[in-house]
């Protein structure tokens, strides 16, 4: 049951609206970018808040583990999340 709910609401980090909060499910891939994201704290279970986007809509900034991290849409799309609340 809970898995079904997760599947229905699961989205990617770039879809998170400014100010909204999500919980990370998974970071896709095992290349350098994916590793760097994990090293910066984007790991399953971590709570992320979307802060805002840059003037042309990209990159996006997020709050994770108390630090503000900017990612491009392409990178944020690789992080699967469940929106909170």
């Amino acid at each position, binding site marked *: 049951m809970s898995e079904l709910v997760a599947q229905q609401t699961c989205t990617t980090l770039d879809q998170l609206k400014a100010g909204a909060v999500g919980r990370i499910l998974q970071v896709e891939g095992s290349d350098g970018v994916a590793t760097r994201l994990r090293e910066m704290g984007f790991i399953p279970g971590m709570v992320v808040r979307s802060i805002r986007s840059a003037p042309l809509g990209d990159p996006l900034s997020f709050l994770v583990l*108390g630090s503000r991290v900017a990612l491009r849409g392409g990178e944020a799309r690789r992080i699967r999340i469940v929106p909170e609340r």
Partner: protein
Amino acid sequence: MTETKVLSPSPSRVFRIALIGNPNTGKSTVFNALAGMQVKTANYPGVTIEKKTGRYRYGEQVIELLDLPGTYSLAPRAPDELVTVDVLTGVTSIEEPIDGILCVVNATLLHRNLFLLSQLLELGKPVILLVNMIDSAEARGISIDAERLSAQLGIPVVLAAAAKKRGIEEVRRAIQAILSTPPSRHAALPLPPRFYQVREQLSSRLAAISQQTPEAKTKTKKNFSREGADSPNYYLLGRAILDGAGLAENKIANSWGPSAVPLLHEAREQLTGELGSLIDLECNSRYSWAATMLQGVIQQSAEGDESRTEWLDRFLTHRVFGFLFFLLLMFAIFQTIYSLAQYPMGACEEGQQWLSSLLEQWLSPGILRSLLIDGVVAGVGSVLIFVPQIALLFFFIAILEDCGYMARAAFLVDRVMGFFGLSGKSFLPLMSSFACAVPGVMATRVIENARDRLTTILVAPLMSCSARLPVYLLMIGAFIPATTYAGGFLTLRGLVLMAAYLVGISVAVPVAWLLKKTFLRGETAPFVLEMPDYQWPSVPVLFQRVYQSCQAFIVRAGTLIFSASVLIWAAGYFPGDHSEQFRLMEEIERSEGNRSRAEVAGLESRLNAESGRLLEASFLGQGGHFIEPIVRPLGWDWRIGVGAIASFPAREVIISTLATIYSLGGQIDEDNQSLVDAMRASKWPDGRPVFTVPVALSIIVFFALCAQCVSTLLVIKRETNSWGWPLFSFGYMTALAYLGALIVYQCGTRLPI
């Protein structure tokens, strides 16, 4: 310096402590607070990272601090990152072994920062944890129980605010303590026990093969000395298992021979089979270890209201205001650099003239005087003239970086720079290259991705620097008619000047794009950029950074620029017989005040004619004649050819060179009408004028695109640590310049204007 293996403090032995931490932890401030201003910088061979060392004395003991680049992780993915791992594990010939590690973390971001600490603790070296910026944490109502953290980690923990010199004495004491009594054990192992078992098995299997093959054995001893269970080299072995095919695996293969690789793969597959994805395993384990270590350590007294940083970010990274502020700030910075640098630059030029006239009084005309004035003084001057701009630009860069704005600027312009195939971090170096490519290339140090940095370095000299302006002004003033449009609002000359600036930019876009598709192709650089809390920059660190960049330029690039200037002087001086020239000079100098003006003018014009003849006969002039067939298609005669060759060291030289060739003497500037007149009057043997509008335009395009600046090329050499890239820059820019000038001239002469 001879190092012994004895680990007891003695005044004769210098102890070495590596300083490491995440970016934005105030590591430079800690370094500065510990070592003061006594800092030495150098480059590690083959890579672009800077090696920064400093020393301080504690009682009788001398401690050497080694500053390592800020990093989030000790998993090397680029050769530059491998250097850090090599230095820490002591498996390298480029650095003496270290005795301990000082890990600097940000008190407000403890959880994230402990990720790196968990890797450092596996190295087997004594580690001290310095929790920096404790004042910022306190201001937000966060208190940290250092004793508890120390007990949980099993290593000394010091709370500090390096910018306020708080906790520095305690750090010194803690360093001394671990050096005199090295800790017997250190902290828990953050990864699952199974990982360490598999690593141990792999290690013994590798040891077995090294025993079988004597060749591998000696190799092992040399590159990979093993010192027991806590040997730091276990770390690299673990990395080779965790990282998959990469730098650590290559290093293992180099040390143990190719037969090690299948064993390594076997260990990796075994672990993956049992525990799943190894990246996930590592990162998740380290973060949950960090959470365990922090249990009961952090107390948040009150839910702090919106921090100063968030409040500022609302404005500074706003879609509209943020961007406007950014543009205004850049404009203000470059205006300031441009206007402020003029005073010291003017003083530098005046000093040069004063020294030259002093030398003219002391020495009679001759080769020594010519060498000193035209070679040495002009050479030193050409180095010093850049220093004011470098100092000012780096002063602003240091402020922007240290206060936290630089990351926001990169965030704001990243999308725009994406059109160039570059990232937001390339903006500032490219922008500063419009003033001068030398500080621009040096400013690329803010870009940590090696390929982005190299692309930026390679296109930076295409930005139209201030030294091109006199050339543009001369050509435009002499050959472009003063037509005005739109009721005098637009002038043709102004439009051509703007076009000259646009030539460089519009060529830089496809060049950057091509470079990223060919030589510098690779995985897209991740734009994972931390935006730190805003804070006041530390004044000593600011001045140290400015001082270091000026010093690096003067000492390392300056010596090369100076030598190059002297070489060009020699090419313009030899092999002619200068006795007639010197006789004329002496006569003019002796006759000052006691001959009629007409007589002196007659002597001067004879001297100018003689100087022109000597230049034509010199190696430089011979070169001009030699390349005449090559520059003919551009519409140039041999004189322009010589001017172009002579201005390869510094493009503004073309004006004085053309002036000399047109027998006017060296003192001439872009406003001097007589050079313009001489150029307008200049004819081919068949009577056609040499300079036409297409020729002037082809010269402008050539100068806009050509790498005519030894200083820039030598700074590229210094920053890339290779001769290949400056040669490449020189080659591609010269080729583009020739092609551009050719197209402009050939089209210009065919179009019916």
